[in-house]
C-alpha cells in the first residue's frame, strides 16, 4: 500500500477515513482494556491505526475531537473473538462484568 502512495498511484492524498464502531458492551479481550490508567482499549487498539495512518500519510499536525463513554459496564462474552488458546484460558478466569470505570 505504501508503494502505491510512494509511487503516486492515487495522486496526492487529500482525505482519509478510519472508522471502527459497533454496538454492544462486551469485555474487549481483557478487563484491563477498560481502565484508562492502563491505556484503555481505544489507546490499546487504536494506536495500531494511528501508526498505520502515519505510515501511509505522514505525521499528524492537529486534531479536534470529542469522546464519550457510552456503555456503563462491560459483560463477559460466551467466547473469545479470536481462537488462540491463551485467550480461551483468560476467558475462564474473567469476571462476569467489569463495572463502570474510567476507560476514557
Amino acid at each position, binding site marked *: 500500500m505504501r508503494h502505491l502512495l510512494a509511487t503516486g498511484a492515487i495522486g496526492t492524498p487529500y482525505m482519509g477515513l478510519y472508522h471502527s464502531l459497533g454496538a454492544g458492551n462486551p469485555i474487549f479481550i481483557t478487563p484491563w482494556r477498560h481502565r484508562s490508567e492502563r491505556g484503555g482499549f481505544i489507546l490499546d487498539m487504536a494506536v495500531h491505526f*494511528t501508526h498505520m495512518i502515519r505510515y501511509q*500519510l505522514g*505525521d499528524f499536525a*492537529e*486534531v479536534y475531537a470529542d469522546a464519550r463513554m457510552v456503555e456503563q459496564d462491560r459483560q463477559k462474552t460466551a467466547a473469545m473473538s479470536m481462537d488462540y488458546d491463551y485467550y480461551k484460558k483468560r476467558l475462564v478466569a474473567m469476571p462476569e462484568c467489569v463495572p463502570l470505570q474510567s476507560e476514557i
Partner: protein
Amino acid sequence: MTQAVFKMEKGATLNWIGGHGSAHRGLILGAEGSIEGLGVRGGRVVFKRHGAEDLSQEEILASAAGAGLEFDPLTQHLFPSGVTAGDPLVDPKLIAYELHEMVKAVRSEREVEVDDGCGLKDVAALYAVFESWRAGRAVQLSEVETCRVYAYQEEIDVALGIA
C-alpha cells in the same frame, strides 16, 4: 468512543471514528484514485483507479513485484502470498518477525522500524484526541507531545504516581 478530524502535516484531512466495534473501514482518497483499507494486519486493500478496473491486493502485489518491489526473506517465509487476511496465525507470525527484528537491532545489524520517537508520535495522536475533547478545542500534536496540553494525561499520571 471517539470522533475526530485530524489535519495531517502534508495537508490531507482524516475523518476518525474510534470505538470498540466489529465494523471497520479505512479509506484514502487521492486526486487520481483511492485505496480501500489502511494496510493493517488481517485486512485487505483494494486499489481503485479513475477510469480503470479495481485492483485486488494480489494484483497490486503482482504489479509491485513487476516493478521490482520485493519482500525481505523472512516476510516471504511467514507470508508467502503477501496477504494476511484469513491467516489464523497472523499475530504469532508478526510477533516472531518483531522478535527477529529486535534481535537484529541488538546485534547492531539494523535499526528497528518502529523506534521510540515513532511510538511516541503514534501514542500522542491518541492522547491528542482525549486532550482535545477535554480542552474543548483543536490541539496541535506538538502541544501534546511536549505535555503543554496535559489535562487528560495528568489524571492518569497522578493515578499511576508518576505525575
